[in-house]
């Protein structure tokens, strides 16, 4: 079922939890609501579920206006952050709950309910735990039971609040894959809330990035990564180096460091330059387009890659910069802790002080007008 949100806003007292926002979710899509805490993502999820009322706007499931429909009649599956399993019921009773509270006339027979419950428990691979109580289960098991319970009533919309937040890394990965395959198999529309970018990028068909009650960007994971449209999204997607630039002598400068942009009007101003760590080239001398000196302070292997931490020399940066290379490439470069290097971004995104807040993507080295060869 598709979901359409129009002009939804919400205030808690003086706090604007959601500014009026619109969102269209296609049938069968898996949407990740990604943002830091306080960004309004959970509030949005709860409004979709009907656990919270919006101050303005409409919610449509398909063509049906559900804005005024009570949560119990919206027929959504909701998985709570701490699972909210009923502690006094066995696992089987938990899963059966949604079926047993259907009004008598439509309710399936006892045998039918039992069949459906055992089928669901098989599906989440926990049939053998049917008679246990929630407190006897591990976090991952609880999560699966919470999912089975939410799916028991065959909802067309499944909402998940930080579904993997409380689990350790290994279980988390397993469950992610499993949820994805479940989603692909059962074809429900899913919306989940997360503050973990990896989770959002890995699971979602489209990611909704939120901050301060606004939607910053909606896009597929690939597009989102390739074209972040604001400084916030860039910062939040993480692992990015920032060069605070002031426009002087026809180049971006910061202390002793400078970078020359191609001659385009929108680039000739103060601003910030974002460079991803794998898009940074290091050399033992500067070139005519980039003079950004560093000392190498640490070289750390991280899985298949090596992370090089860089401290700026003669210019200011709030944080250390990071560059990543393959082990092989690092050996070729012959970098060592303590040595001085000069960085050149291969690709960077520039956010000017003036302008609409969207970045200009730029690559180095570029051919200056009239040149036929790189002058590096």
């Amino acid at each position, binding site marked *: 079922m598709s979901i359409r949100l129009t002009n939804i806003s919400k205030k808690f007292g003086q706090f604007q939890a959601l500014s009026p926002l619109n969102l269209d979710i296609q049938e069968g899509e898996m949407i990740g609501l990604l943002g830091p805490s306080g960004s309004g993502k959970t509030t949005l999820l709860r409004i979709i579920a009907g656990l919270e009322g919006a101050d303005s706007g409409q919610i449509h499931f398909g063509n049906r206006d559900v804005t005024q429909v009570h*949560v*119990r009649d919206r027929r959504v599956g*909701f998985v*709570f952050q701490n699972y909210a*399993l009923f502690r*006094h019921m066995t696992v089987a009773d938990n899963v059966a709950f*949604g079926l047993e*509270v259907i009004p008598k006339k439509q309710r399936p027979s006892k045998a039918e309910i039992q069949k459906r419950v055992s089928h669901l428990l098989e599906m989440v691979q926990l049939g053998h735990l049917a008679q246990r109580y929630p407190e006897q289960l591990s976090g991952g098991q609880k999560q699966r039971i919470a999912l089975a319970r939410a799916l028991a*009533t065959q909802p067309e919309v499944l909402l998940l609040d930080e579904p993997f937040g409380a689990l350790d890394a290994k279980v988390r990965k397993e469950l992610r894959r499993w949820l994805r395959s479940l989603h692909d198999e059962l074809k429900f529309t899913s919306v989940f809330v997360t503050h973990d970018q990896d989770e959002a990028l890995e699971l979602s068909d489209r990611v909704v990035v939120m901050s301060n009650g606004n939607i910053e960007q909606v896009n597929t994971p690939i597009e989102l990564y390739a074209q972040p449209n604001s400084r916030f999204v860039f910062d939040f997607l993480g692992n990015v180096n920032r060069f605070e630039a002031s426009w002087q002598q026809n180049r971006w400068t910061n202390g002793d460091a400078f970078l020359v942009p191609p001659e385009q009007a929108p680039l000739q101003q103060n601003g910030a330059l974002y460079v991803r760590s794998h898009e940074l080239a290091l050399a033992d001398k500067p070139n005519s387009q980039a003079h950004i000196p560093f000392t190498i302070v640490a070289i750390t292997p991280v899985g298949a890659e090596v992370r090089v931490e860089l401290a700026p020399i003669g210019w200011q940066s709030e944080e250390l910069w990071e560059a990543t290379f393959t082990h092989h490439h690092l050996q070729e470069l012959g970098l060592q802790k303590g040595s001085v290097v000069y960085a050149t971004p291969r690709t960077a995104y520039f956010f000017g002080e003036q302008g609409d807040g969207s970045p200009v993507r730029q690559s180095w080295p570029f051919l200056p007008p009239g040149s036929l060869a790189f002058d590096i």
Partner: protein
Amino acid sequence: MIFNNGRLRHKRVLPGFSISLGVSLLFVSLILLLPTTGLIMQTSQMSWAEYWGVIADPRVLASYKVTILSALAASLFNCLFGLLLAWVLVRYEFPGKRLLDALVDLPFALPTAVAGITLATLYAENGQIGSLLAEIGIKVAYTPLGIVVAMIFTSIPFVVRTVQPVLEELSHEEEEAGMTLGATDGAVFWRVILPSLWPALVVGTALSFTRSLGEFGAVIFIAGNMPYISEITSLMIFVRLQEFDFAGASAIASVVLLTSLLLLLLINLWQARYLRRIHGR
């Protein structure tokens, strides 16, 4: 967790083990345990036939019945009333809420004798409430119903004060989970909220029952104390004492004492079992 068991001599980190335990044991022995020796010696001097004759005396038997039935009625009433009070105090905001909350403890704070004479006066046929009830043909003071009223008054706080904290800590999410699964308010209350409150409710009611069984001061003034009709067991002990029949008093007291100890034990066991299931330990 591994605790040091005698063999592995390990000095305790915190000070005061021997003195605090020593004083506690001494106190418990002198104040709680030593006095029971008198009762044991007194009853052990009786033969079984004598003992049975005292505790199964028809008038005493009638007093058991009156006491147990009244306590049962009072605790069931308080189960419902206590749940209502706890619910209203936790879930709603309304003017005078703090006052109501404070008032709930009145029965614990007010001496039972004071409660007794007040209730007797209020519910007497010429009393404020008694006169109203007399018009519709209900007589409270000096009947078993009066005993129930006194027991209700003295044990109101038990259910409220055991259910209240549980209700406060009940997670909002379980309720919401019930609703997202399509349950009506009624279904959520019966199937999600009430089962969570159940253990506290049972314990509170059981405490209220135990207290009512032993209540003396508040009851004797309003009961009328008519043999076979409105005499409670505690009064039977008192009467035996005033007749200087120590043996008789001890025999009846031993029944009361064992009953209340048994109840206490059952409440503790039940609570422990339930907690184990909920907390998975």
